[in-house]
């Protein structure tokens, strides 16, 4: 059987040449010149609807362009603009009809630089709760429900297109997938789409024009890669658990040996002499003020051949005492010179100096834990703001 082709046909309205790309699948075709909608199954191309358009919209992807998509090569053969009117505002998106003579029809929808490659479903979605639906094993959340009006058409379609035609459109999302129901009195047509970026679409069609920029977050746009907070949480919590385990090990092995403990009367400088044992580690210096007043103490830790370690501290009265940590001290014989100054007039009163060797500190663990949790917390915040932006556009 010869390939049926409607060729050499002219628009009965303006005489412009009519070309059919989907062979006898075409039911209606729009004259590219005068935008009249014609009956593609009528040998005389009877006029179905005279042009109602005020303006001629030029599709970004020219009709007749072929692109490589999942499932094969498809050619753009039809284009329509559909509009939802809401609170006096008009929201329009575009739909390209794609065709392959063996694999059939697909759709490419675009709104503000966000694309979906769509095909009709041959399974029935089932209700999943009062509003959501389930297809095979995926739950789709309802996103929008509105009446869409066809406001501009170009090219050919396997159905009767009409400017002004209205269809109830309900969208459900499970990013990166979208599920749409178009309801007419005759039937509900379900279709499923996969999100695509302008760059991916332009690459599929090998277009050289600049791809349109995406504005905002689209209803089924996948969260950017790296924003998966759950895996970050897992990693961070695992490292945190390891850090706590190491800290516990270090903490439990600290010797905490008291190398010096002596009580003094305020006023006279003292010089404590003691032996520090073991490997290089810290020395904890505790000063317990029992004078009943705050006091100021100057310390100087000395050892032959070592630069003296000098520091001063304000030591308040009572409590468990003031603790100073002197890190990285070698073993050997040390002298600690202490000058404790009391407020004027105070000449009696006791204070205690105690030195402990190898007292592990847990301060670094808390610091490490906080640092470890910052990335997942930030990611969670970022992901939730992405989801907020997505659902800000929902009317359900």
């Amino acid at each position, binding site marked *: *059987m010869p*390939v*049926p*082709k409607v060729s050499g046909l002219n628009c009965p309205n303006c005489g412009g040449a009519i070309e059919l790309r*989907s*062979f*006898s*699948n075409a*039911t209606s075709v729009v004259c590219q010149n005068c935008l009249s909608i014609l009956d593609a199954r009528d040998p005389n191309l009877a006029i179905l609807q005279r042009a109602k358009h005020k303006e001629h919209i030029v599709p970004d992807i020219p009709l007749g362009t072929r692109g490589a998509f999942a*499932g*094969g090569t498809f050619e753009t053969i039809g284009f329509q603009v559909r509009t939802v009117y809401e609170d006096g505002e008009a929201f329009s998106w575009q739909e390209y009809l794609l065709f*392959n*003579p*063996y*694999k*059939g*029809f697909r759709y490419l929808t675009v709104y503000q630089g966000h694309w979906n490659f769509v095909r*009709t479903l*041959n*399974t*029935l*979605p*089932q209700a999943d709760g009062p509003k959501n639906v389930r*297809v*095979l094993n995926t739950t789709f959340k309802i996103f929008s429900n509105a009446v869409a009006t066809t406001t501009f058409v170009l090219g050919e379609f*396997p*159905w*009767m297109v009409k400017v002004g035609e209205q269809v109830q459109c309900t969208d459900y999302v499970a990013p990166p997938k979208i599920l749409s129901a178009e309801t007419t009195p*005759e*039937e*509900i047509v379900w279709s499923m789409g996969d999100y695509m970026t302008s760059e991916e679409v332009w690459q599929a069609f090998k277009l050289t024009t600049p791809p349109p920029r995406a504005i905002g977050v689209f209803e089924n746009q996948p969260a950017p890669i790296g924003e998966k907070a759950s895996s970050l949480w897992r990693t961070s919590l695992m490292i945190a658990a390891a850090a706590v385990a190491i800290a516990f090990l270090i903490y439990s092995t600290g010797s905490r040996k008291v190398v010096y403990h002596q009580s003094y009367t305020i006023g006279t400088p003292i010089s404590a002499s003691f032996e520090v044992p073991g490997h290089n580690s810290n020395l904890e210096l505790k000063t317990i003020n029992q004078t009943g007043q705050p006091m100021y103490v100057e310390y100087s830790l000395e050892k032959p051949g070592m630069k003296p370690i000098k520091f001063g501290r304000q030591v308040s009265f009572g409590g468990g005492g003031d603790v100073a940590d002197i890190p990285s001290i070698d073993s050997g014989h040390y002298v600690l010179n202490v000058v404790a100054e009391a407020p004027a007039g105070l000449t009696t009163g006791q204070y205690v100096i105690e030195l402990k060797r190898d007292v592990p500190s847990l301060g670094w663990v808390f610091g490490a834990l906080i640092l470890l949790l910052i990335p997942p917390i930030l990611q969670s915040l970022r992901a939730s703001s992405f989801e907020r932006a997505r659902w800000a556009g929902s009317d359900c």
Partner: protein
Amino acid sequence: MISANCPNCGAPVTFKWSSAVQTTCPFCNSILVRRDVNLEKVGVVADLPPDSSPIQIGTEGTYMNKSFVAIGRIIYEYELGGWNEWHIMFSDGVSGWLSDAQCNYALTFMESLPGPVPEANAVQRDQAFDWNGHHYEVSVVTKAHYKGVEGELPFEYWDHHEAIFADLRTIDGRFGTIDYSQRPTVLYLGAGVDYDDLHLKNVRQFEGWN
């Protein structure tokens, strides 16, 4: 393979499928029905309407690891388009139907009705039937015209005009059609299929696409 001569033009007519009841003469387009050993001309196929099915008589494919070949078809048209019911014969002699509705494919087999169905004038969208453990819902009811036949069919089919078809779908991709064009009503059950999954060979060629 059974051979005979067309009672109208004398051309040789062969049956690929021994159970075929009807065929068309490839030369004079007579519709021929087997009566015992003879072929009887019951009508003539008008020029088939132009269609763009990639399937043709002789197209081969596989379904569930069984090979089949297209040996006949019925063409239907309705208000918004048309479709082909390709009669296919499997290698083991089983006969099935591959429907092509603007490249939406479904493969079905004739089944006896497992339960009652509404009359043609009462069937409507959203009615449901629980058959063989599956929940079938009527997805669309189509009033179609018989537009022509070609090749071998398992029954006489040449004098039909308008008929009602109710398409059935399930949540797991099963497909069915209640066909009210015959008396009694006939049921076809199967599944929606992807073009690529049928591994078709000897398909039609389309200018600019091969």
